[in-house]
């Protein structure tokens, strides 16, 4: 299912539910309002706001996909987490965090060059995992805090993306009620729709 189809499905589900429950008149009032008009107009980071050069972006993509690799579901970069991280840093967190991200990426590449004589994104998956795990398990490492922060942005970006929330997990736009007990098995995904994000 394409991203546009997912959007349309959510929109249809909401409209159908509202129409079914409230009737045509009320749903017409609702749909003429701002809520639905605004609901499908996401804007990403403009090109001029992007702050990473090509190699740094490659490193961020490699970092994203080491945190959340492709399995039976898409990887972090496949749902655009590297773009989300940049966008969120600029729009929400501000300059100090942007600089922290740059330092992390440079630091990962420097460490990688020192240990393996190549850039981080060129390492194999085992090497990347080992390098990141070493940093994560070393609270005194100068990259420890920034890795933790950027990793949390990658996870947040992944599971709040359209694919992450509605395909990797299950998304209920309009649950229709609360059931206190449903049976699941070990393969049942969790909910991507939460009360507060």
């Amino acid at each position, binding site marked *: 299912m394409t991203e546009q189809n997912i959007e349309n499905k959510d929109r249809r589900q909401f409209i159908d539910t509202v129409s079914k429950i409230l009737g045509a008149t009320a749903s017409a009032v609702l749909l003429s309002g701002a809520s639905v008009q605004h609901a499908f107009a996401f804007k990403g980071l403009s090109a001029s706001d992007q702050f990473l050069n090509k190699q740094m972006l490659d490193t961020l993509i490699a970092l994203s996909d080491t945190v959340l690799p492709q399995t039976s579901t898409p990887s972090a970069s496949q749902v655009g987490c590297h773009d989300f991280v940049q966008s969120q840093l600029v729009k929400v967190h501000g300059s100090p965090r942007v600089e922290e991200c740059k330092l992390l990426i440079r630091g990962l590449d420097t460490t990688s060059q020192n240990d393996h004589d190549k850039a981080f994104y060129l390492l194999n998956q085992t090497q990347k995992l080992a390098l990141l795990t070493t940093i994560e398990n070393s609270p005194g490492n100068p990259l420890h805090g920034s890795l933790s922060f950027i990793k949390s942005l990658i996870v947040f970006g992944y599971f709040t993306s359209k694919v992450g929330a509605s395909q990797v997990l299950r998304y209920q736009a309009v649950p229709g009620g609360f059931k*206190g007990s449903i049976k699941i098995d070990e393969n049942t995904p969790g909910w991507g729709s939460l009360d507060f994000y």
Partner: protein
Amino acid sequence: MTEKLYINETKEEFDAIVVGSGITGGWAAKEFCERGFKTLMIERGRVVEHRKDYTHENKPVWQLETRSKVPNLLTEQQHKVQAECYAFTDATKHFFGNDRDLPYSTEKDTKFTWIRGNQLGGKSLLWHRQSYRMSEFDFQNNKLDGEGNDWPIRYDDLASWYTHVEKHVGISGEKAGLKQLPDSVFQPPFELTQAEKDVQAKLAKLYPDRPLVMGRTAHLTQPTSYQIQQGRVTCQARNECQKGCSFGAYFSTQSSTLPAAVATGNLHIAPNSVVESLIYDETTKQVKGVNVIDNETLTTREYRGKVVFLCASTLGSTQILMNTKTPSYPNGLANRSGVLGHYLMDHCYNAWSNGELEGYDDEFYSGRRPTGIYIPNFQYTPSKYKKGYKRGYALGGSAYRDNWKIGLGQKGFGAEFKDSLTKPGKWRFNFYAQGEMLPKFENQVSLHPSKKDKWGMPQLHFNVTWSDNERAMMEDAADTCREMLVAIGAKNINSWTSTDGAAPGLAIHEVGTARMGRDPKDSVLNGYNQAHDINNLFVTDGSAYCSTATVNPSLTFMAMTARAVDYCVTEMKNRRI
């Protein structure tokens, strides 16, 4: 809504003026309008139309430009206080006040968190919707243990008014027959999870004085024909209430009281009208109306009415009274007692505990329940007080499964890490305490002697702190919750207090400052929310409170307001007002 609903300039003298459009303002307007009174509702903020102005409703998180996070710079500059509220997100921030325009000050080394909702509907759009009756004990404890003044009313005075408002509002819950938590008129309760049912059964055996009930909440689960006629339908369990609800499933001014008032043809609304003070006639000893500053143009105007109901929120109403200085009342209107602004209270939500529950691997839930479990105060009368502090606390909480958000702070990388975040996680059970704050004269709000806001109104100045009583109560609550979690078999339990971190105000249950009382020498209002010395002035929001009790206050605000309107109308008909 009709074209004449919203007004600006008018020379009309209204039968009733209601200042504020939140939970109490909506109720006052509805009750007056349904009794045939030409009523003016005055709102300081903008108009918010039901459905049409819920701009972020049902917007999936990925459609939000910052995925619900508010930019740090914007928060710092405009929403530093409001951002402390759990419900403040990028998708709800337009229903919260802008701190830049709403300054206030605090005494050195104190903090007060003042959450604002200045728009038509006020905080009824933002509230947490928990709805409980106060009990006979709650109205007696001031007298019995000597803290605060004696409430001039008892449970029996309000019981029929609780019933009156509950039938209109729609409260989901289950009858429990508890004298410390009287039953309401209920629609069916939300379901407990299987884990919660088991905890409920264990607690019933281990702690018979601490019954666990489903949280009672102002959500429709089986709407009446009248509610359906109003365009209100069954809750869909989205739990995105603070964005506004087009289903009208939770009670708000917009979904419930406003359409009822509008339907009478007796309502007018003056939006963008900041009430600066009341117009007081020294000869008749009555209020004649209100002085208003336009929210946008800062021009001034007056509105005239036969009676005035202040429903502008606890602090808003008290600010208006304090800012109305007359020869007879140089320290604030209706303040002959000198207690106006004093005895400010809030609830103390500062003890927490959670633990893991084993098993239930094949159990999950569907939908987002807009309420949790509730254990009413089990120290509800002096004979049940613990050593070291007075009064008690209720417990809220729930059983839930961890979700992907644990990955925001969890170690790990790669496929295994990803898989662990994709599946429902461990079951946990959490408790939080909702403690009573004692009424203290020294907990005060006053007008700042020099600082003013953009409308020229003196800013409020707060001097409020938790007392040793609240601190001791929260320490005990954290220990008690831990003990209860151990007893039900939870593992890896954490318990903590946050009394030093979460200041008064953050519960958004601020009450007191214009309290009721039997004696005009130590109170502002009588038992009908009527000013002791000004018979056509009523204050029916939380400022009238004499104590906080432990239950969420909004349902009682509604019942007191409806009762006060009924009394006022009777008094007017009998020409005593």
